[in-house]
């Protein structure tokens, strides 16, 4: 069975940044790293592949829709144990960070690869759409479960646990092919060792253009759910009253506040 694992290289703003008058951000303010959730979905795929009783072959394929910033993330996935990597990019996709548009691209990849299981992250730590995976399942008309905290192979299907709001857990059965969105904490993602990092260099990795997937840029833009008008600074109007000074002064003030509030 083939398991497809879509991964995202996420952008964060760590230091200072400025927005220009039109509400756009200078891309030099961005830092790139692998999406926290995707390490868990890849680990889940690797564990499923490893636990399969001999006989059935598994292939774990990672895919990202990204410019060259995505390469590093794919290399890390190969070093972790993925068998093959795909990157889809077209310059016309620059700035497209819309879950429905990305899902449309991933759907074309999935139609080509025909996986038995797709494992997405619940969400990406930069945009937190929590939507790409389930949108993809909708386009492919696949059974799916969102926010999965445990997976077990169960005959020809899967038994999974889904995390509900409030901390309850629902146990569900579904058949394959299927798509799951994976929650952090489901497993302990492995770290790649040096040998694996070296080995990764010889694993197959390909870059596809939209035309290779018979997709048109206008198709992708049209299915995008929203358009970003501008970026705004976060309002801090009601922000916290800040306690200044060394740790000693901060601790003193905290003791004072806690004592007052608990007495009141």
């Amino acid at each position, binding site marked *: 069975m083939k398991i497809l694992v879509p991964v995202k290289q996420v952008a964060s703003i760590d230091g200072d940044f400025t927005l220009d008058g039109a509400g756009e951000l200078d891309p030099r303010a961005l830092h790139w790293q692998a999406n926290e959730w995707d390490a868990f979905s890849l680990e889940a795929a690797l564990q499923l592949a490893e636990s399969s009783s001999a006989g059935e072959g598994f292939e774990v394929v990672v895919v990202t829709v990204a410019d060259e910033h995505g390469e590093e993330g794919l290399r890390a996935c190969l070093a972790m144990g993925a068998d093959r990597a795909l990157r889809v990019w077209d310059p016309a996709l620059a700035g497209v960070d819309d879950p429905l548009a990305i899902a449309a691209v991933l759907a074309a990849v999935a139609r080509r690869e025909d996986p038995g299981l797709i494992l997405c992250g619940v969400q990406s730590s930069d945009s937190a759409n929590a939507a790409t995976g389930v*949108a993809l399942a*909708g386009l492919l008309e696949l059974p799916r*479960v969102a926010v999965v905290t445990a997976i077990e192979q169960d005959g020809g299907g899967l038994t999974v646990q889904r*995390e509900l709001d409030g901390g309850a857990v629902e146990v569900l059965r579904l058949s394959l092919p299927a798509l799951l969105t994976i929650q952090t904490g489901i497993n302990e993602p492995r770290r790649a060792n040096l040998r694996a990092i070296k080995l990764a260099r010889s694993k197959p990795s390909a870059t596809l253009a939209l035309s290779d997937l018979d997709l048109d840029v206008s198709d992708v833009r049209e299915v995008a759910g929203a*358009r970003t008008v501008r970026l705004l*600074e*976060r309002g801090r109007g009601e922000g916290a009253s800040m306690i200044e000074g060394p*740790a000693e002064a901060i601790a003193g*003030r905290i003791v004072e506040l*806690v004592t007052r509030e608990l007495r009141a």
Partner: protein
Amino acid sequence: MSGGVLVLGEIGDDGLRPSTLELIAAGLELADGGAGRVAVALIGADAPAHVQAVSVAGVEEVILAAPERERFEAHVWEAALGALIEARRPAVVLAGHTADSLGFAPAVAARLRLGFASDVTWVAWEQGGPLARRGAYGERLIAELDFPAKETVLLLLRPGACGARADADAGAGGTGASARISRVELDLDGVARTERIELREAPAGEVDIAKADFLLSIGRGVGGGERIGELERLARLMGATLSGSGPLVEAGLLSRARKVGQSGRTVAPRVYLALGISGAAPHVAGMSKARTIIAVNSDPGARIFDVAHYGAVADLFEVAAELERQLS
């Protein structure tokens, strides 16, 4: 109905979720802005029991669908919402950004090529269409979105963020006075694609953090756990109950009963002292109602400072050591 706002009520195993009233309030605000009439859709066998509660002044219609479904199943809800949208062609559909919605709403949006945004924290009707805001870059910034050329826009609203009128108008529950009730027949036979085996309630655990007056709550800023003992000791010394963020529970450093947030407990203590917690939305969802929130974080841009009443940019261990010294 073509045009107008369709609010999707959320009914859980525990009844009508309070976020439904916020969605209605947000819908009424859009209507005030010119979006048209507000209808509320309730899906599932339990729906008729909640008609009264959602019949808030201003809601013109309550639509009941899928009476044969006892409880939530993502594919049935997907089919039901899709059919409702195709039948009514609303301008805006509002649902909650909740664990249930995340299992089907994006699929509806993708299949029907709707306008779509999730985790929306602000919405308004402007120049003939909705305008929405949500976080960007880990909520360092806010993105403002519009939806050109989309006949229907599906928005998932973050619980607690939109619908400011919820408390005033809807909080007391509806009057049932003026809303028209209609039923939509949908053929949902064989649509379900998952089978529920079991529902496990949240474990009671060794402590009820929701009852504590004073929570000392720790996040990933405490690092790998080597120094968690220092904070347990500090909590005892301060007379606080220890709680924390999701990642600490996942790492096995805290029990599940001590998790604060969307998938943990909702707490409202007199004092919530947050050490090394960034203030991600799912965490804040569980603690924003605390009476006094004090946050210590080494990052001046941390979002926890947006909800905290008092904040200090500092190393949590230095502050903890000072607290211990001053209190011993």
